[in-house]
């Protein structure tokens, strides 16, 4: 007698071929609170004073506690209570950095994430008196070359080792080759590179990316979610292009576009790379 096993095919597998979600990357700026010691009433008074000064700047910003100097925060510290106290003040604590192994365990237990320490930037609270608004995208507007950029470039290079300067407005201007392993982040707007970008280098911008040279590394535009951002380059040889988190690797580019002047943009959820002629 022939008894072959019967295989039941579930109805679910045949139902839909559309994925329930898409995975994308996203950059955001978190506010880091460097703790000198465990929070005490004076700490909360200071927080209240800070919020009274600029009530809107910190609303909805993700906060991270830096535990580097907070040796008196021991594993029994009440992170849950602290998170609640801060949330009462409309501050959302999402994680900690530079903690010891025990501090990190306690933080994880309270639902906070432990972050690798990143590069800190001083937030410009004086210049911005409102929460940062999404700029209306202007992808076709060329970035005007600032007459003073040479001066500001020279000044900037005295302060910071990287050869970058903010031109008029919010564009970040780079005039020297971007080397392998370097990462340039234009967090305020566009990024303009008047040089080539080596393989292994990364360009990241809130707005558009313009490379007046050969783009060989990775370029990620519109990282704060601006899907109208574009990437332009004189010669395409990039490893990866991404706009608002949607990316394309070099093997997915049309071979005829290699080393051509191209622009990349999002069109109806697809990342398109087209020749600029």
């Amino acid at each position, binding site marked *: 007698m022939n008894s072959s096993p019967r295989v039941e095919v579930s109805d679910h597998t045949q139902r839909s071929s559309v994925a329930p979600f898409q995975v994308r990357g996203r950059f955001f700026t978190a506010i880091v609170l460097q703790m000198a010691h465990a929070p005490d009433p004076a700490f909360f008074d200071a927080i209240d004073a800070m919020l009274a000064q600029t009530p809107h700047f910190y609303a909805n910003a993700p906060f991270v506690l830096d535990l580097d100097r907070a040796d008196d925060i021991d594993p029994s510290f009440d992170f849950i209570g602290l998170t609640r106290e801060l949330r009462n003040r409309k501050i959302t604590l999402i994680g900690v950095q530079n903690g010891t192994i025990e501090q990190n365990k306690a933080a994880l237990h309270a639902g906070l994430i432990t972050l690798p320490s990143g590069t800190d930037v001083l937030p410009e609270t004086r210049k911005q008196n409102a929460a940062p608004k999404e700029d209306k995208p202007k992808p076709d507007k060329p970035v005007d070359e600032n007459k003073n950029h040479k001066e500001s470039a020279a000044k900037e*290079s005295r302060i910071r080792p990287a*050869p970058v300067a903010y031109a008029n407005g919010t564009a970040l201007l780079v005039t020297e*080759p971007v*080397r392998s392993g370097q990462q340039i982040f234009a967090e305020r707007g566009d990024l303009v590179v008047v040089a*080539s970008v080596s*393989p292994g280098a990364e360009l990241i911008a809130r707005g558009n990316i313009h490379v007046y040279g*050969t783009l060989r590394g990775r370029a990620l535009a519109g990282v704060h979610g601006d899907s109208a951002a574009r990437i332009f380059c004189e010669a395409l040889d990039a490893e990866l292009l991404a706009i608002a988190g949607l990316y394309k690797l070099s093997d997915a580019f049309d071979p005829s576009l290699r080393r051509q002047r191209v622009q990349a943009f999002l069109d109806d959820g697809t990342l398109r790379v087209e020749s600029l002629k």
Partner: protein
Amino acid sequence: MAKVIVITSGKGGVGKTTSTAALGAGLAMRGKKTVVVDFDVGLRNLDMVMGCERRVVFDFINVIQGDAKLKQALITDRRLDNLFILPTSQTRDKDALTREGVEKVINELRNDFDYVLCDSPAGIERGAHLAMYFADEAVVVTNPEVSSVRDSDRVLGLLSSKTRRAEKGEGSVKPHLLLTRYDPGRVAKGEMMKVEDVLEILSIPLLGIVPESPTVLSASNVGTPVVLNQNSNAGTAYADAVSRLMGEQTEMRVLGPERRGLLQRLLWRTA
């Protein structure tokens, strides 16, 4: 005041130590008082390539730790009066190098010499970082192939950001490209990168093109810097590079590996 020049590359095995020895000897031959310093703690090779490994008593680490004076550690080259070697330790490792210690030694050397050549180890960690940190100029040694070019590019990024000059805003470390192990035959076949392609990616001034040459291995075996070999194309290329390093305009000659004569090709295994 001396010029401190780091010979670096990122990639290993491209010819840093050979180049340090050759450029150092070349500068000394031109009358400049030169010292070559080995930064590859634990894997020292500069003393062997210079032919003085049997005369090492005190080394760079001894001087940093105050066990010896600089004068006691410096070795005079037997062939050239103007050439000195500061060897490093073979038993310790890079953790023995401290920024303050290196700074003190380099400053002392600056006072007594015209040129201080720092032979960097491969990589981008402590030893390489300290070798480049106090430099005024850099010779980036690169082979005409993709991995070496990529690593050299990384090193160029570090030279413009992680050196004393970059951090203090005193003008940048002046980079020079030294293309080594160049074989025109393989370039013609497309197996190796062309000079223009390397320059397009690295975009720094070309110091010289040193051809692949069996004389380099022979030189290292006997402990004589290859620039002292009159019959070597590599040696000639290094001599040209030395002129350019001194600021002279010298026409770039692209030499290939020495051609073997008929007899040599028949009897290619030399005694």
